[in-house]
């Protein structure tokens, strides 16, 4: 049963990837929709970023003093000026570790 569910979930996922690329003709999208597509990254990724920072493993909001908030702010500043993906990720992680292992330990 689990196997069948996985296969169905896989087919569904594949369709989410393939539908707009292979099945839907681009002319089908109106000009209004095309104008908005430029915003897709800005409109999608915060829905991954915000919950991963502000909501903990148990579905509750974190405290404003949570080290993740500090780590995210450092990453945003470093990322903005360095334009470097590795620097962004590492600066966020290292500042987060600094807080949990050095300051709060």
């Amino acid at each position: 049963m689990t196997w069948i569910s996985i296969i169905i979930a896989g087919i569904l996922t594949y369709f989410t990837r393939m539908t707009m690329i292979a099945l839907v003709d681009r002319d089908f999208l109106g000009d209004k929709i095309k104008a908005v597509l430029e915003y897709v990254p800005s409109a999608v990724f915060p829905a991954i970023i915000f919950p991963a920072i502000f909501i903990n493993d148990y579905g509750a909001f974190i405290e404003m003093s949570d080290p993740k908030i500090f780590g995210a702010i450092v990453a945003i500043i470093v990322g903005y000026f360095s334009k470097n993906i590795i620097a962004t990720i590492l600066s966020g992680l290292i500042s987060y570790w600094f807080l949990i292992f050095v300051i709060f330990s």
Partner: protein
Amino acid sequence: MLSKKQLFTKGMLDISPHMLSVIPFGIICGAIGVELGFNPYLVYAMSIIIFGGASQIVFLQLLSGGASSLVAVTSVGIINSRHLLYGAVLSEYLEKLSFIKKLLISYFVVDQGFSESNKFFKKNKTEQHLHYHLIGTGCTMWVCWQIATLSGIILGSFVPEELGLKFAIPLTFIAIVVQDLKKIDHVIVMITCGLSSLLFFDAPFKSYIIISPVIALFVASLISRLKK
């Protein structure tokens, strides 16, 4: 004009920094699956059949928590529905490919690959074999995801939990959108999406992941109307 090989390599290089967060996350995903008591073959098969990071963990967590298969499958579908938006963006650049090539390339569309290839496409619209960049990002992601989840399944969670490496995932996405903070319209769209995701976090089937982009895109459409 870049050759197919050059474009493929460029794609690989453009996505590789993200592996810093993808690999630990893949290891954690594999390890969690086995810890939840699922058959290791089944856990690994998901990396090939679904090939969709967080949705794989959610699927197993729901099933092991006693949810029905219908709920688990629906949640995977909803979590991954964001790919429809990626496809709509990418279709501009993949229009000329044959139907078969479109079907094959679609399998490799993932968050980070979409965003890095899309950035490249916007700057290099005149290149002839643009899609090789997307194949490069997608294949790199695929190989790393397979190796990472497989090592998590076989070796267990050898990444110490105290390190909190799941935090690398939001950081990877911060790296993707951070340059758009220069544009006020994008900032408004991002904040709309982020706040909506917190507001609708408890909506059924993890639907916040598609509800918030839809709200944010609606706001984006209002903005683009104002700009005219």
